[in-house]
């Protein structure tokens, strides 16, 4: 069995005096989409930030392709092939959509250097981006910003995407676009670790699921298993499905 | 009783204790041990700066606020006394009036500035205080009718303090008992009293809360302390002591001008003294002020020797030229900020804690 692409083992993270992660164990396999579920404050965002090196794990191991990255700097981690879409999207509001995308394409010195086929594919997934190419990103609607944030993460091939609540506040039509995008990405051998509160969105995509509570992983398993077991859902997520729409 | 007098805040290092005792004795005995006007002036300046730098330590070391407007309060105190004595004649009531007015102005300004500091980040606050101090200095030199403009004010002090006054015709132990001597001992006494009061303040519950705020404001708020109130009080108290130091300066010099008390150079000197001596210790101000002022006035002689010795190598000679004493103190300052945040006092105390 191939080693997992990403592996967290007993990760503790402290922020100042606060102990947020209490020994997180997590695995993401190649070409898989793993969903990280949990209530607000469970530690999901902290987990992503720790992987990305924005916060450092105080103990435990974070391994990417077998290599320990817990002490690496954020730019180094990004250059290993990990892309991060934070909860606040990290949009550069004063820059145009074009400039945002150019920034995300590390190997491109100018916009023409970007693989046009890839760009067309992205425009196909998110048509609004083509339309507002020259507009300052700050003027886009919430949904369009979210699309751009994801588009930035995939403008160049990456091995792992860390995405934090992409569906929050989005219209159903746009969520559909996202689902299509993620499915296509999985086909291209990109792995995704998706933090979500919207279970309905997550279940359409996820291969594996991990549930977090109080800074710990309290359940791992396949999505199919969790999706089929309402009792399990209630116990883990505390609320019934309907509340997660 | 000693415990009470020093508010339980002892030097906590034998070396430091010796140093402090030496400084105190040196100051008290200056007229007898180091005769001459220069030594007396240096000692007086040390006293005044002990008060001034301690008041700055209260703000920077204990509360964690960097303000470049400190010389403004120093100047207010000095000008208060200067203006009062110039316009009301050399009487004690004029002195009282001058100090009183200065304190009122300082309290008002420090209240405003203090409240303002809470609304902006530390960097902005530092910039703004820089601008305010510069503006105030300009103001002082523009209001020539009141402040004597660029030339400043020269005035006479109450009779008992003036040089012509003789307490007794017979000199005591070779030192003439004139107004100058009385002035000096007034200075020394007031300095010690003010210092001990500040020591009391920083060791009181109030002082501890200040330190808690400096360490972690968020947590202090969470614990229920209204940091607004504490920081404002710290600003005001610090201003009060700086103002009093200014009053002492004016009384000693019998002169005050924009450069005597308001110049940016003085602000830098204060900063150097408090950091090199040791922030957040108050004793650091004593050590720092003494070290700095003695260096400023006497090291030059030492450096002159070194400079002459290095005469053959022009660059070296210029580096140790007595005029470049500030270069070495500046380097010491940078190193202190970087590596010894608790300054000389901190180092000595740390050494004392280590088992020998």
């Amino acid at each position, binding site marked *: 069995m191939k080693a997992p692409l990403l592996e967290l083992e007993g990760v503790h993270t402290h922020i100042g005096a606060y102990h947020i992660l209490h020994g997180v164990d997590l695995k993401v396999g190649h070409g898989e989409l793993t969903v990280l579920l949990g209530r607000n404050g469970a530690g999901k965002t902290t987990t992503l930030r720790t992987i990305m090196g924005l916060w450092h794990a105080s103990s435990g191991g974070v391994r990417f392709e077998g290599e320990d990255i817990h002490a690496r700097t*954020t730019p180094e981690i990004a250059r290993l092939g990990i892309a991060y879409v934070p909860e606040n999207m990290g949009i550069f509001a004063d820059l145009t959509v074009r*400039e945002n995308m150019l920034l995300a394409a590390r190997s491109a010195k100018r916009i023409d250097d970007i693989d046009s086929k890839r760009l067309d594919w992205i425009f196909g997934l998110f048509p609004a981006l083509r339309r507002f190419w020259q*507009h300052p990103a700050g003027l886009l609607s919430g949904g369009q910003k979210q699309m751009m944030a994801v588009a930035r993460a995939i403008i160049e091939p990456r091995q792992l995407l860390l995405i934090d609540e992409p569906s929050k506040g989005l219209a159903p039509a746009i969520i559909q676009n996202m689902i299509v995008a993620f499915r296509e990405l999985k086909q291209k051998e990109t792995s995704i670790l998706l933090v979500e509160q919207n279970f309905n969105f997550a279940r359409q995509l996820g291969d594996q699921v991990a549930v977090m509570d109080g800074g710990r992983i309290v359940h791992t398993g396949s999505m199919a298993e969790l999706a089929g077991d309402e009792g399990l859902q209630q116990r883990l997520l505390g609320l019934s499905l309907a509340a997660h729409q | 009783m000693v415990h009470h007098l020093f508010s339980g805040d002892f030097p906590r290092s034998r070396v430091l204790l010796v140093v402090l005792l030496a400084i105190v004795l040196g100051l008290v005995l200056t007229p007898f041990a180091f005769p001459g006007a220069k030594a007396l002036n240096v000692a007086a300046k040390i006293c005044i700066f002990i008060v001034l730098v301690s008041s700055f330590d209260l703000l920077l070391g204990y509360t964690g606020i960097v303000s470049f407007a400190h010389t403004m309060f120093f100047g207010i105190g000095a000008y208060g006394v200067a203006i009062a004595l110039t316009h009301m004649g050399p009487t004690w009531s004029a002195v009282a009036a001058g100090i009183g007015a200065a304190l009122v102005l300082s309290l008002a300004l420090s209240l405003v500035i203090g409240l303002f500091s809470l609304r902006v980040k530390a960097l902005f606050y530092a910039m703004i205080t820089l601008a305010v101090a510069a503006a105030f200095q300009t103001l002082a030199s523009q209001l020539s009718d009141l402040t004597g403009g660029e030339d400043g004010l020269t005035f006479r002090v109450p009779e008992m303090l003036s040089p012509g006054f003789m307490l007794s015709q017979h000199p005591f132990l070779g030192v003439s008992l004139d107004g100058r001597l009385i002035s000096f001992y007034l200075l020394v006494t007031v300095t010690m009293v003010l210092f001990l009061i500040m020591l009391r303040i920083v060791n009181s519950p109030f002082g501890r809360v200040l330190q808690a705020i400096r360490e972690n404001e968020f947590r202090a708020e969470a614990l229920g302390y209204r940091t607004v109130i504490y920081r404002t009080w710290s600003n005001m108290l610090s201003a009060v002591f700086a103002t009093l130091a200014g009053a002492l300066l004016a009384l000693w010099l019998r002169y005050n001008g924009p450069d005597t008390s308001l110049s940016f150079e003085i602000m*830098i000197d204060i*900063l150097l003294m408090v950091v090199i001596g040791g922030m957040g210790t108050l004793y650091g101000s004593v050590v720092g002020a003494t070290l700095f002022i003695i260096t400023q006035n006497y090291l030059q002689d030492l450096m002159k020797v070194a400079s002459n010795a290095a005469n053959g190598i022009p660059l070296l000679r210029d*580096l140790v030229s007595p005029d*470049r004493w500030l270069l070495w103190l500046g380097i010491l300052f*940078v190193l202190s900020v970087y590596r010894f945040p608790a300054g000389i006092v901190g180092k000595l105390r740390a050494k004392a804690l280590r088992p020998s």
Partner: protein
Amino acid sequence: MNSSAATSPVLDALPEVKPDRLPLLLLPVLALVALPLTGSFSTWVTLTFAGLAMGMIIFIIASGLTLVFGLMDVLNFGHGVFITLGAFLATSVFGRMSGWAESDSLYRNLVAMLPAMLVAMAVTGVVGFAFERLIIRPVYGQPLKQIMITMGGMIVGVELIKVFWGAQAIPLPLPTAFRGSLLFGEAAVEKYRLVAVLVGLTVFAAMHWVLSRTKVGLLIRAGVQDREMVESLGYRIGRLFVGVFIAGSALAGLGGVMWGLYQQIVTPEMGSQVNVLLFIVIIIGGMGSVGGCFIGALLVGLVSNYTGFLAPKVALFSNILLMVIVLLWRPRGLYSVGNR
């Protein structure tokens, strides 16, 4: 800025993107207000050019400071040391080329001035590199220490300047071709001031070009807004910062040369004297915005010269008043940048 055929009116409801030109209007407004106050047109022309020249020099100096703050939240209280260093270097270069500076040929004068500028920029750039490494890097993220140590850096720097050049003021006469004034009707405009304006515009144009047309510039603009995200995209913003700091120091050195020539005298205190003015300018402009710094610097230059003529006593206060007025209008400066 183009709207192609709409598939849905809702999605195309984005407004036309108009760049925010309002602050730029402040300049002609201010100038026009000053016109009746100064009385004579020719005086006004002289003052305005003096103000623009001074503003340009301040811009050259302050631009580095604002970018460095915008990018890394580092406020270099010791920025003045580069100004002073640049100016003193110019005296040395001019000292060696005094024949060329004194000659009547414009060509020779330029050849004397260009090396001065280049040497100043090169040396201050190198010193900037050392400054960043020794003084600033150890205290990233600690604003209190930053304030103190950068100030300490300036003290040490100025003392070292005195070691090399002495503690006295050194005159820095203008090359002959740049002395005197050009007459436009009755208005006299000093030649050097025109030069300063040209140099300033060139620097601004160059900076604008780098920022808007190169990837490095893009990184800087993005980094000013959201440093963390730029790092998450894989860029080592630490290195970028060093580069910006060096460039800022070099520009301050250039500004020092121009400032020294403007006053025709160079003193060790000249750097710390403009500290307050620099802070006022970058606050007015908005921390991190080069365009804002440009307009802010010109405003300060104009205000200083107009009030210097009309009411000399309130010169410093007028700049503080200007800052207050601008902040009342736009609390974060003329162009606010970033997520502060």
